[in-house]
């Protein structure tokens, strides 16, 4: 929470007297004397407005022949970047170079200020300050301060470079850096360049000091040595490149020897991202990650993956896009974290899609795919699969409804390379027919609810799906898995993802959604219910159902008031009225950092386990400066707390310190590759943040700490 007394940074606002035309110099003074139209002297409340900025002084002198301006007597200089009070000022009117002596300055747009023996301002070079002090703390409470022999701020470079920097905390010099760059604006700089200090029982005390190297306008590197008292020195480097049509990033982390690592080998993590345009239609993208051992992330942490992740992508793809035709060739592989049975990869996978409207309402679509699956082991099947799916579709749509009719043929060939004794067939051909009719109608009415007039919608939907049957037990499982049946999934028209199993189907899906929209179309209430009615059971024995109806799927979103929001999703199996899955979340949100959320999740069976989990997350300002964040997750099934986190932040105008302590399931892999379910770790977090300089985004807010809160970015090829 921002302190009330923190002075807001001054914003650049030059006085209104517009210069008639650029090169002009406009001077106001009580007394003016001009000699031979070359030497002009001004005195008494002098005000000079020029392209370089706006100067106020007691006395000023302009020499038109050598184009210089000199002024003295409590000078105040103002331009778009900085406001300076000083004793004297010299300005070269031709080159625009300006120099102020014994100054006190205030940056504009952000809270940086301080003193400097001299300040030189130049349109190209930017700002150069000599023997300078710099802080973002308000007048009189300089809790921290940087003193440097020189400080340069180049305009287009968004960077400040300081030399012989001494760092003062509360007036006490804390450390010295000969050369030090810090971000003035957030554009290009993602992480903070200020040191990051934290302590945890995993690494001991950790001190990371990033150095930014601006190699060229479109290449830069950040090298961050990280010293960990319990483990040693880890070197984290990030190299980024950006050309007109290609951009990418390489991250390398290396830890030569780790004192606490059970095996005496070096540990590393690498990540390579690339995205490029080869031509208008051809694009290339790559995401390749790898690490030295399964516990790397659990022990050392990582900016891109969290300790709960099970795999990392290793993909390389070339794509061709044009209006009717798309083609993509991809290698899709994975680095599996932990000891899991063979994981199939598609090396390679070629896809060709073609779309062509045949008439105003009739469309033709052709999807084809050729892929080779193998998992690097010779005692398991590998296969080459070619799949074709021509579809005729008739989409009809108008204001109140939609009717989509589709007919497709699904033809798949397999060439399977089998270990001896496998029950599968080497050559398989499967031909299936599929018909689908989907319809939706939108009804509306005006009603008056909760004291305000609302629009209520009623949107019934139905879908009939027929797929023919062919035995598929001669086919291995490469990229196929059952799909989660949430409300949207009911209307997907496929029970499995991947192509190795296409279940025969003859069922009708019925669903209805009702919404309440207020005057400006904001959704206040939304309830959806849906269920599939199977007219006959699937002939794929291993997936046969013992019920002629799917679980009833329900979803609810309800904004009870401006502060309270309730959300819930439920899947109730109709045969035994047992809950397959349910979750309920209640949010109370007063403001961005004043919120409480209670959530409960239940899944009857997921990969053989039952999930029954209660969670509470809260963030609450205690006072003007103190802010508390808490998070607590309890496994009701196992009757234990699987994660608890509490954090306190003290924030003053120009700095903030965050303390946090976290206890969580360690999910560390033991030598046999298994994970214990009893091992817990605790981590204490201490982070010091300098406010007003560098990007705020980089210091993760306390709320993100802890596994549950943290949002991990995906790399999307867009």
């Amino acid at each position: 929470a921002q302190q009330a007394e923190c002075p807001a940074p001054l914003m650049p606002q030059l006085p209104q007297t517009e210069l008639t035309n650029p090169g002009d110099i406009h001077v106001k003074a009580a007394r003016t004397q001009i000699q031979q139209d070359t030497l002009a002297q001004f005195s008494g409340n002098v005000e000079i407005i020029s392209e370089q900025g706006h100067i106020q002084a007691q006395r000023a002198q302009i020499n038109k022949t050598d184009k210089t301006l000199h002024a003295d007597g409590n000078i105040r200089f103002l331009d778009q970047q900085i406001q300076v009070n000083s004793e004297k000022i010299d300005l070269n009117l031709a080159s625009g170079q300006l120099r102020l002596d014994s100054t006190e300055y205030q940056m504009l747009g952000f809270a940086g200020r301080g003193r400097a023996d001299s300040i030189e301002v130049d349109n190209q070079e930017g700002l150069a300050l000599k023997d300078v002090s710099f802080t973002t703390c308000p007048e009189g409470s300089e809790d921290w301060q940087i003193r440097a022999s020189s400080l340069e701020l180049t305009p287009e470079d968004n960077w400040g470079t300081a030399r012989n920097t001494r760092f003062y905390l509360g007036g006490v010099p804390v450390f010295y850096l000969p050369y030090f760059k810090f971000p003035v604006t957030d554009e290009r700089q993602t992480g903070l360049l200020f040191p990051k200090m934290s302590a945890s029982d995993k690494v001991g005390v950790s001190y990371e000091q990033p150095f930014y190297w601006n190699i060229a306008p479109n290449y830069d590197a950040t090298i961050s040595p990280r010293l960990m008292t319990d483990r040693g020195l880890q070197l984290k480097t990030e190299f980024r490149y950006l050309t007109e049509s290609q951009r990418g990033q390489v991250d390398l982390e290396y830890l030569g020897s780790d004192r606490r690592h059970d095996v005496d080998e070096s540990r590393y993590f690498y990540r390579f991202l690339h995205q490029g345009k080869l031509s208008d239609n051809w694009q290339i993208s790559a995401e390749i990650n790898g690490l030295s051992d399964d516990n790397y992330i659990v022990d050392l942490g990582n900016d891109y993956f969290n300790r709960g992740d099970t795999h990392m992508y290793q993909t390389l793809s070339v794509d061709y896009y044009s209006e009717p035709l798309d083609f993509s060739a991809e290698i899709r592989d994975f680095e599996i974290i932990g000891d899991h049975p063979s994981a199939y990869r598609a090396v390679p996978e070629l896809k060709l899609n073609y779309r062509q409207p045949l008439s105003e309402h009739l469309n033709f679509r052709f999807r084809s795919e050729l892929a080779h699956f193998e998992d690097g082991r010779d005692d398991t099947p590998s296969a080459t699969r070619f799949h074709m799916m021509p579809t005729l579709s008739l989409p009809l749509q108008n204001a109140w409804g939609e009717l989509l009719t589709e007919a497709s043929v699904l033809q798949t060939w397999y060439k399977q390379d089998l270990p001896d004794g496998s029950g599968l067939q080497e050559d398989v051909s499967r031909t299936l027919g599929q018909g689908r009719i989907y319809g939706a109608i939108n009804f509306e009415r005006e009603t008056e609810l909760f004291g305000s007039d609302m629009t209520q919608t009623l949107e019934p939907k139905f879908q009939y799906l027929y797929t023919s049957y062919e035995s598929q037990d001669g086919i291995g499982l490469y990229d196929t898995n059952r799909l989660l049946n949430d409300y949207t999934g009911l209307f997907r028209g496929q029970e499995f993802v991947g192509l190795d199993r296409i279940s025969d189907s003859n069922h009708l899906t019925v669903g209805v959604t009702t919404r309440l929209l207020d005057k400006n179309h904001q959704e206040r209430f939304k309830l959806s219910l849906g269920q599939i009615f199977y007219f006959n059971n699937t002939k794929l024995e291993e997936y046969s159902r013992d019920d002629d109806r799917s679980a009833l799927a329900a979803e609810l979103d309800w904004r009870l008031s401006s502060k309270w929001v309730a959300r819930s999703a439920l899947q109730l199996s109709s045969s035994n009225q047992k809950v397959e899955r349910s979750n309920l979340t209640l949010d109370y949100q007063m403001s961005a950092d004043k919120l409480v959320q209670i959530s409960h999740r239940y899944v009857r069976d997921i990969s053989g386990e039952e999930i029954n989990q209660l969670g509470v997350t809260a963030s609450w300002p205690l006072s003007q400066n103190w802010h508390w964040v808490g998070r607590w997750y309890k496994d009701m099934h196992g009757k234990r707390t699987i994660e608890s986190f509490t954090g306190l932040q003290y924030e003053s105008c120009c700095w903030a310190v965050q303390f946090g302590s976290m206890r969580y399931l360690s999910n560390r892999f033991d030598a046999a590759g298994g994970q214990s379910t009893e091992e817990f770790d605790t981590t204490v977090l201490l982070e010091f943040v300098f406010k007003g300089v560098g990007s705020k985004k980089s210091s993760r807010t306390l709320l993100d700490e802890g596994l549950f809160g943290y949002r991990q970015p995906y790399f999307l090829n867009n």
Partner: protein
Amino acid sequence: CGFHLRGTGLLGDKVTKVHVASDNQHAPLPRALKTSLKGYKVQVLSSPQEEDITLYLYPEKLERSLLSLFSTGQVAEYELNYHVRFEVMLPGQDAQLLEFTLNREYQDDPNAVLAKSRELNLILDELRRQAADRIIRQLSQLTEQQP
């Protein structure tokens, strides 16, 4: 009970031509939006026109936040957060920035990594169609409020 078929024309009659702009024309979201627009019989222009609407789509962003853990501490369920930001430039008006986030649940399974990556792409395509429809709904609301 007062229900009647939804009367207001969904975009079709008020808006006939839209230009969809984005950094990468072939990115999945702009393509999904153009397909949906054609579905609503709206002509997609190849370049911006003064008297017509222009939609600028920022790159889509997908994040995952965690919902539940297995007893070993490994991730069981994720929530996929799909962020969409776009600008609407109605003729004669300055651009309005709109954004929304769609959420879907996604189960992880370390024993079927390839199938799960397929499922992620499937959910992502559904999110893109859902986002395209929502952009069109918001666009038709904006054009309705116009005189």
